[in-house]
């Protein structure tokens, strides 16, 4: 059981505090409720580019990293489709350095053209390093627009193309900041070696005077129900093996359905005793790697099969084998042991994730973002409530052909 306090300041900032005396550090985790799903279709990749600019100086801070390092801290950030998360881990005695830095950049940035130009270039290199110069790196650049036609999940956080990043202007940066970077659009979570009430008092001190943005954020258009199967074949990739991806629309992270789908994916592919591993890697040897997993997005997401074929496998045969596994899943009984195993694994996974104070801090912020912070202590119950009947009903509607997008990612045949 993880103890925490949750307070909303007058300016709308949500503050979560959790004490863990097993570490000499504290983690200051600031989550902004903005991700690539909040971008315009002609300016994609912007939320992530903006994350880089958050390290380029704020009103009273010329060099963010320098102060973090001087205080013995370490910081980083990541952007997803749904959110942008910044964190500092720092010796507990220096927590105010972290709060000063985070509050200053929530209050106002230095908007410099030079910083923007350099970070655009850095992000373009990141685009190349991770998505283009990397085998299978561009799969999601192809798969997202196949699975989504309307919702902004149709582009990845890095953006649709380097050109979008290159055309970002300083005006875009300012507008984005004023709209999304404000206490009423943020969650701060403090975890580690500090008493909860003391942490709250310090957050109040450093963040209490930052005015809210009170932005009215436009609704994100939801993805219409898919009514026909979609397929895409991408040929002549510089990869040693063909790959196949089959994705199905499922419900959002905060839904009951999510837990059922997660269990389905675990029965299929979590561990070397799972069905896909035994049938497709060990017995038929059609695949060298295969995985089934859920995306866990805050809007309705995807259930994903991804597999790499062994050299001798024909892509048609590989796809039929996945479909056969799905049919078997719907047709045949799920054993109580399979369900028990998944529940045990989930319990263990949750226990392991509670070892680290920084993990706990970011998990608390994430569950608050989803709208139910108590999930930090109740998620394993959600899994336990899932029955074999739930699994069958959900799987039947999930794995419909017309709900599926398939990508064949084929190697260069020469």
């Amino acid at each position, binding site marked *: 059981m993880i103890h925490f306090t949750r307070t*909303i300041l*007058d300016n709308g900032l949500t503050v979560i505090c959790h004490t863990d005396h*097993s*570490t000499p*550090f504290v983690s200051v985790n600031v989550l902004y409720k903005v991700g690539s799903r909040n971008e315009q279709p002609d300016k994609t990749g912007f939320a992530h580019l903006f994350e880089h600019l958050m390290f380029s100086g704020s*009103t*009273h*801070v010329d*060099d963010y*990293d*320098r*102060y973090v*390092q*001087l*205080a*013995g801290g*370490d910081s980083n950030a990541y952007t997803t489709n749904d959110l942008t998360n910044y964190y500092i881990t*720092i*010796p507990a*005695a*220096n927590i*105010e*350095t972290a*709060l*000063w830095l985070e*509050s200053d950049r929530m209050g106002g940035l230095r908007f410099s053209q030079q910083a923007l*130009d*350099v970070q655009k*270039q*850095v992000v373009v*290199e990141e685009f*190349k*390093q991770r998505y*283009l*110069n990397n085998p*299978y790196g561009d799969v999601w650049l192809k798969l997202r627009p196949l699975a989504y036609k309307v919702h902004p999940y149709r582009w990845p956080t890095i953006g649709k193309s380097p050109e979008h990043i290159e055309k970002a202007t300083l005006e875009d940066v300012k507008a984005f900041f004023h709209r999304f970077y404000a206490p009423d659009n943020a969650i701060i979570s403090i975890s580690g070696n500090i008493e909860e009430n003391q942490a709250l008092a310090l957050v*109040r*001190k450093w963040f209490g*005077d930052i005015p809210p943005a009170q932005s009215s954020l436009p609704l994100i258009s939801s993805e219409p129900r898919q009514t026909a199967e979609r397929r895409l074949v991408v040929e002549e990739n*510089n*990869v*040693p*093996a063909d790959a196949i991806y089959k994705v199905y629309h499922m419900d959002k992270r905060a839904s009951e359905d999510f837990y059922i789908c997660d269990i389905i994916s675990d029965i299929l592919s979590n*561990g*070397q*005793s*799972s069905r896909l*591993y035994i049938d497709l890697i*060990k017995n038929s*040897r059609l695949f*060298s790697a295969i995985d089934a997993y859920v995306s866990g997005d805050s809007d309705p997401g995807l259930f994903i099969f991804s597999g790499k074929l062994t*050299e001798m496998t024909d892509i048609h045969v590989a796809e039929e084998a996945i479909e056969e596994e799905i049919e078997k899943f719907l047709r045949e009984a799920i054993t109580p*042991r399979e369900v*028990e*195993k998944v529940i*045990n*694994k989930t*319990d*263990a996974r949750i226990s*392991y994730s509670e070892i680290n104070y920084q993990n706990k801090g970011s998990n608390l912020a994430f569950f608050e973002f989803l709208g139910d912070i108590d999930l930090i202590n109740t998620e394993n119950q959600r899994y336990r409530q899932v029955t074999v009947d739930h699994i069958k009903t959900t799987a039947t509607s999930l794995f419909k052909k017309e709900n599926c997008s398939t990508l064949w990612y084929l190697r260069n045949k020469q």
Partner: protein
Amino acid sequence: MTNHNIIHPDRTQAPAVASLSIPDLLAYRQFTLPNGIEIVYIHDPAQEVFKMDIIFEAGVYHQPCPLIASTAINMLNEGTRHHTADAIADLFDYYGAYTDFNCGLHKAELNLISLNKYARETIAMLAEMVEESIVPSHELDIYLTNKRQEFLVQTEKTAYLARKKFCALLFGETHPYANQIHEEDFSQVDRATVENFYRRYIRNGRCRIMICGQVNDEVLQTVVRCFGSLGASHPTPESSLHSFHPASAGRYHVEKKDSVQSSIRIGKKGVQLQEKDYAGFMLLNTILGGYFGSRLMSNIREEKGYTYGISSYNVSMPLNSYWCITTDVNNEYTEATIEEIFKEIRQLQTHPVASEELALVKNFLHGDLLRELDGVFAQSDALKQKLNYGLDNRFYLDLIQRIKQCSAEDLLYLANKYWKAEEMYVVTAGIS
């Protein structure tokens, strides 16, 4: 919602920074079983899980031909005299435990993380894997086929090609430290060779078991019962010493057509953990490329935007060491990047580091070392490595002191001693 008086904090001044504490080292205990197996553990009663590492003297250095050591350790969960691979996987999955296998240059490891409530079951299976592995051919064949494919994916990456070339140059193509793997090696692995290696270095070899987390009586008794009953272990037979055959320093290129970026590796021999310059060199390396605010990052990423990242690091190995700068850049910036790297090195050889920067990096490094020792799991990992050098985590107390005492003059001296331009290997992989 209650109304609170709004405070306007003074943001014009950075809050005062407290000096950093020395690490709080957790006590470890050790004992040896009658059969020679050494147990080292750190107990933290607040945990409900434990981690166990079984460390064998069974790394790449001892293998008769490529891939044997990594294959032998990875085959441990692929079948024993009493359990098939599927049954072993099912047991660990059922109890929510994770196993992992690592093969290093000298050591090979089997790791387990498990909930305490299933300690008896998971530990017993671990012991069985060590004692009764049968290296079944079907599983071996699948393992090698899939590893070969992973290898082929790696060879598509310029970063992998540059690293491979760099190691071959530094240690010599055939030295185990270079660990050069070729596609044809995968088809030449022979089951009998793997099994012999397993018998000699894993089953009959001497191992050390590190346990951390909730190491209660039940865990200890189970370990003693399961591992104490194994046959007597023998000190690992000395492998013949392999001599190093470094190539001449200079510029080397690996062509990779159609690559979007080039990977650069620049480096040479580094400094070993037990050498007196280790602490100073660690500090020097951090200034150049060992943290986010380093000189290389500031210049090549934050000023010029040539790369998403550039870093440098020093690796200490039992019989050697290396130091290396690594980055991926846009093809057109390759030459400019190399030039800037040497400029930054020369700068450290000719101009003393300003006191403000020196203080900052010392603090950063101190914080980083505290982080390396944060919590029982981190301390156990740190201790595991130090024991290989006959040291323990008190090493850090000394290291932090030495770093504190290091002066700008010391750094100038070290930069000149270790970073002679004519000793550097410069490797690029990509389009020439």
